[in-house]
């Protein structure tokens, strides 16, 4: 059994002259929980749809569980759970009817007890029609439907979008139930960095269709840092420090956001530039993400090499 469950090679999608996904090269190892983050319109949904064979790539390829996305067989699809963006389900069906419908496609895998437990855990009535459920409740049904067949790979497209904090917490706890099954892999896109931080062990950052980071969460947390540098005299005109993302300056203070720069190099540069002192400021994941993907003043693109 391969250790890579999801793999893309130069995956590219153009809509007319607009590039939505630009030469996406990534691998997701088995058993990890991958947070796929990016701003609105960064290409997360397009990338996920390409991986699931719902869109055809302009260039490149992707493989899920070793099978090319454009020719995913029914056997492979059985092993992949998918929660689509917005939790769009058949509105006229009740939860019971949806379960019967979904169950027919996973005759051997369907865990009826698990589904029932999840529906009860979320406090939903099985007779209720989807159209009468709130957005959050629909999300819970979607998750239960995707988890009950016990998929090897679960792909979720912005599953917590539009949910309040309490429902989101419940949703994530439901997801953790799946994670507890050994060897399960989860890829979920999200705008909410707190969710990613809570459950992911790996982070994929996509910006304008380009994959800009693919590393463990700890690596990302330690790689992106903000440094406040004070000068006795004026701030130097040119800031040339390795891994520079952004640079904001006042008269005697320089605030730089760096990626992948170790403390030795910061220290070395500070000394050479004549800084009086410097301080590394702790950032939360959200700030790191915003700094990492913010366009203005960006000095260079950072491609994380390590997987």
């Amino acid at each position: 059994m391969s250790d890579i469950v999801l793999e893309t090679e130069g995956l590219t999608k153009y809509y007319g002259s607009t590039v939505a996904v630009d030469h996406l090269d990534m691998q997701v190892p088995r058993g990890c929980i991958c947070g796929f983050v990016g701003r609105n319109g960064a290409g997360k949904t397009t990338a996920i749809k390409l991986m699931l064979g719902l869109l055809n790539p302009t260039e490149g390829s992707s493989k899920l569980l070793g099978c090319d996305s454009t020719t995913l067989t029914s056997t492979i699809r059985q092993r992949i759970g998918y929660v689509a963006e917005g939790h769009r389900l058949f509105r006229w069906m009740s939860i019971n009817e949806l379960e019967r419908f979904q169950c027919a496609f996973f005759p051997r895998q369907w865990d009826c007890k698990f589904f029932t437990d999840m529906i009860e855990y979320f406090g939903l009535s099985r007779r209720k029609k989807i159209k009468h459920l709130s957005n959050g409740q629909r999300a819970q049904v979607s998750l239960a439907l995707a988890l009950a067949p016990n998929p090897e790979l679960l792909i979720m497209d912005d599953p917590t979008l539009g949910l309040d904090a309490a429902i989101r917490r419940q949703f994530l706890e439901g997801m953790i139930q799946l994670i507890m099954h050994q060897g399960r892999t989860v890829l979920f896109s999200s705008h909410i960095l707190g969710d990613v931080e809570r459950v992911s062990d790996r982070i994929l950052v996509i910006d304008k269709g380009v994959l800009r980071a693919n590393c463990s969460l700890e690596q990302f947390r330690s790689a992106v840092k903000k440094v406040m540098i004070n000068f006795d005299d004026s701030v130097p005109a040119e800031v040339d420090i390795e891994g520079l993302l952004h640079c904001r300056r006042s008269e005697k203070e320089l605030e730089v956001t760096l990626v992948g720069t170790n403390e030795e190099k910061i220290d070395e540069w500070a000394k050479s530039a004549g800084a009086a002192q410097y301080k590394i400021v702790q950032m939360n994941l959200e700030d790191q993400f915003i700094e990492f993907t913010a366009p203005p003043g960006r000095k260079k693109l950072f491609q994380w090499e390590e997987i």
Partner: protein
Amino acid sequence: MRFSALLRKEFRECIPWLLLAAVVFFGFGGYCLRAFAFPRYGYLYNPYFQPGSLVEPYRLTNYSALQLPGIWLSLTSIGLGLILGVRHFWIPYFTGTWPFLLHRSVNRKTVLAAKLTAAAITFVISLGFTWIVLYWYANRPELFTLPQTARIFIEGWIFILLGLVVYLGTALSGLSTAKWYTTKAFGIAFASIIIFMTFSQWQLFWTFAVIVIGIVILLSQVIDTFLNREF
């Protein structure tokens, strides 16, 4: 099991329209047919239709009691085709359910086959069955002077096939990702041409041939578009 689950789902979505079409056709078609029944001529009650009138034998031999219901059948069939085409191929786009439907452990051909089968069953039950009932009613000698010919019965089924042409045309337009002023309108435009050709040159064999050719062309286009379309 998977196909039957898909078929059940698609057919359930057709049921309201099946009932509506059956009620419309049975209501209006039946009303028109009743007007010709012997005990009372209904709105055709006038001196020309009175027993013994000189006009009556001519009318009775040249005017089928199923002619007006046949017009209702064609209208209902076209309407039903349009509605089912929209229900099966347009609504999932607006409700965003295509990704959920297509991420199944079946191939796209099976999903499409379930939709087409559900539509065909809907036509047969709502219009075909009602047509059989009306045909049977129109053949009751105690109510109608002349028996209805098999040709009239077949013509009714041709009208039902015309509904399938409209269904496939609507499906093709719904599946197309092109702009309305380009090829997106092709499906509906093609179905409209078939309707025009059908009514402009009504001869049983000619009409049947035109409709069958139309169905084959549209079906091949729908299959090709559905299998290669991006969702």
